[in-house]
């Protein structure tokens, strides 16, 4: 699954640690999501979408 988390985080000027704190997850989790090593669960994906104020499908796409 592809995502735009890194770009959106950059737009907001947050570090991985700051974003992790806002979502109550570890920085390692944010790094793993951004690098595509880990696909978040649906509840966490919705929390990310709510944090950026965007629909979930504009952040995550299933890719090929």
């Amino acid at each position, binding site marked *: 699954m592809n995502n735009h988390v890194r770009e959106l985080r950059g737009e907001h000027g947050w*570090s*991985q640690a700051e974003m992790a704190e806002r979502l109550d997850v570890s*920085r*390692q989790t944010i790094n793993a999501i951004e690098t595509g090593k880990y696909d978040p669960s649906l509840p966490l994906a919705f929390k990310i979408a709510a944090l950026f104020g965007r629909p979930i499908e504009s952040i995550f796409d299933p890719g090929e």
Partner: protein
Amino acid sequence: MIASKEDDRNRRVSAPSKSPSKPTNRRVLATMGGVAVLCALPCLLVGALTGRRWLVTAGAVAAATGAAWLLCARFAREEVMRPVHLRYLREFFPAMAGYLVLIVVSGTLVPRMESQAGRVALAVLPLLPIVLLIRAMVRVLRDQDELERRIDLEAIAIAAMSTAFGFFSFGLLSLADIGWHVSGDAVAIWVMPCLFAIFGIAKPLVARRYRDHE
């Protein structure tokens, strides 16, 4: 170049403050390692002087654990610990300290106790803090984030299967009567330490799968 700048910024912003109120993982690991090594030295010394093998073994396990924690502290990334993990440590250390005290009390008094009921009570006494340790582990598994939980569960699965495989293999080889003479109680005692040790080795290996260049 962009990634490098961003990584620099992440390092700067995620760098912990120097405030002692915010413990970092490196500081905590180094403290744990130092305390474990300091506890191991008198155990090894007293055990060697008095000829108590169990005390020497406990000292060796503590020394190895302490050395592993110090090594982890050396290579860990400096980050402020999350509240869920601080709570785990607050629950883990009193339980572990209680276990260490009770295992020494039990190991010293059991051979001198004549009553069987007394021996049973003293033998199972160190299990009480172990129950608290298990409770702390279950609580941290439930409350940490989903990736941390996945890593821990994968490491526990690897540890459980490897331990079972190892002891089963040992049992089959013992049945083949190849000249090993190890008592059943000694084998049973080592199940839990083996489980924890393999978990400790497996966890950073599993975590590597989810880590990119940081």
